[in-house]
């Protein structure tokens, strides 16, 4: 499931459609045709998100300068290498050569800021309840697969979503886990004696190095897909990460949202019958995750 979901971080293709409430919902002085702006991202999330961006950038950039000094990782079997990290041209063009010392100096200064920002973000998610919008529940993995299929135009109807769609929930959660792993392996490499036996968790000093590097590549891939999807999702979606608010245009409500039960054939396959037992008592996403 994670392989399906990882690269797909997908604000709905028609960004303003699905999460939008019915026209009756907007408390806009009587006129239902007037667009309203609805809070999407709380202030803390926006600040922490944007602060993280340059911090992660500096960490990866300085990390690559460190990696350059001993760039041994590659995909391949035996002596046959399919792809070696990294081709010479990358080092040359990104000024990564012979900068090990400077790389370390930046890495061990900005690392603290990256950790502090991430810890505050995690605490905020936990305490504010915002985690409910992000952490997957039992049905999210399957829905995430459907989001991917929908995205690839292999499936007509997108599964229902909240603030984030299922693929976003999966990928944001995985990214958070990867960030935690990158921090812990980073400390294991940074102070393997002081923090012993921490490196043992990752197969020792060299094991921690490999995992730390793999997580970097994972975060780079996430970043790539994230940017592509943000561009695809459009201005209204992007603006919400700056202003907090997403504009809802009442004219563009989809079928799914006008209260009609999903009895039409296109969505029939999305009914997860295995979950029926739970449906009597309305179980919200939060409660499910908590199990």
């Amino acid at each position, binding site marked *: 499931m994670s392989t399906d979901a990882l690269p797909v971080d997908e604000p709905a293709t028609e960004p303003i459609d699905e*999460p939008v*409430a019915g026209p*009756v*919902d907007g408390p806009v*002085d009587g006129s239902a045709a*007037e*667009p*309203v*702006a*609805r*809070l*999407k991202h709380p202030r803390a999330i926006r600040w922490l998100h*944007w602060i993280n961006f340059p911090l992660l950038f500096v960490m990866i950039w300085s990390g690559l300068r460190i*990696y350059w*000094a*001993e760039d041994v990782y590659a995909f391949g079997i035996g002596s046959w290498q399919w792809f070696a990290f990294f081709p010479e041209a990358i080092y040359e063009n990104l000024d990564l050569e012979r900068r*090990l*010392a*400077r790389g*370390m*100096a930046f890495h*061990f*200064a900005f690392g*603290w800021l990256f950790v502090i920002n991430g810890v505050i973000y995690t605490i905020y998610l936990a305490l*504010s*309840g915002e985690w*409910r919008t992000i952490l997957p529940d039992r*049905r999210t993995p399957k829905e995430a697969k459907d989001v991917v299929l929908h995205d690839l135009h292999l499936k007509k109807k997108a599964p*229902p979503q*909240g*603030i984030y769609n299922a693929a976003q929930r999966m990928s944001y959660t995985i990214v958070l886990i990867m960030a935690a792993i990158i921090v812990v392996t980073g400390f294991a490499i*940074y*102070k*393997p*004696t*002081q923090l*012993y036996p921490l490196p043992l968790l990752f197969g*020792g*000093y*060299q094991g921690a*190095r490999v995992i730390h590097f793999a997580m970097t590549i994972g975060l780079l891939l996430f970043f790539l897909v994230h940017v592509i999807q943000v561009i695809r999702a459009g201005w209204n979606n992007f603006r919400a990460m*700056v*202003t*907090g608010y997403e*504009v809802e245009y009442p004219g563009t409500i989809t079928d*799914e949202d006008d*209260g009609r*039960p*999903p*009895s039409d054939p296109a*969505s029939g396959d999305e*009914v997860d019958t295995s*979950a*029926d037992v739970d*449906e009597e008592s*309305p*179980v*919200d*996403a*939060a409660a499910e995750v908590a199990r």
Partner: protein
Amino acid sequence: MSDDQQPTDQPPESEVSEVSDAAEERARQLRQQVEQRPTIPIDQFKRKSRRSFLTGAAGVAGAFLGWRWIQDQGTDDGIPQVLRNTLEVNEGLWSNLSKNRTAPEYPVSKATPIQVNGRIGIRTDVDIDDWALVVEGPDGEQIDELDLADFEAMPQDDMVIEHKCIEGWSSIVHWGGVRYRDFHERYADEVGDVKYVGLETPDGQYYVGWDIESILNPQTMLALREGTEPLDQAHGAPLRLATPNKYGIKCLKRIGVIRYTNERPPDYWAERSYDWYAAL
């Protein structure tokens, strides 16, 4: 957030079938995440939006200026002053956090030959019979001179540890020799509560500085042997430092001078942008 109550007050469309219930319920629960969030009229949004983008622009400008501030300030041994200061803050933090911790040691069977990485200070071979090590006290006076036989007469120890290069590679090495703390016993009274030890190759080309606590760690060794063989020239014959607790750049080969001092000793790589402490 209280999204746990969404019973039957949903706008009723009469035909609610059993089959569609689950999907419907799911969609409604998720939709509620959105519907719970407040809305504001568009003109208010426009004002907020303008403010947010101005804040964002200020943030971008601030980040840019911060970056320039780091890059444009004076350097201290090759890196911006603020980064050098941060390395020293890190040093203070870690040197106080846990003292005298030791790295794991391994069975001899795990040991492999260590690669040769640097020849600074040992480019020409040394005549082992002529070699002598000078010990200096904190006042700069010579307090001892030792030759290889003197070291061979001291209590010998072994350790199999992971030697870590600052470049990233590491290898498990079997070192034999004299633990520095045993060597230090000879001068402990004479040098007193000294803070640092500086070490140099005989030609003075390569030099490292150690804090006294790190060098007195039981895993800091004045190595005479790799495995059971005397060190060869490239690995620092006849006597070198070895430890799993600092990077290899601190493990001086072919030690010519050991200098007790209360001033932070110069360090070849620290002068070339690296961390002076370099502890693991």
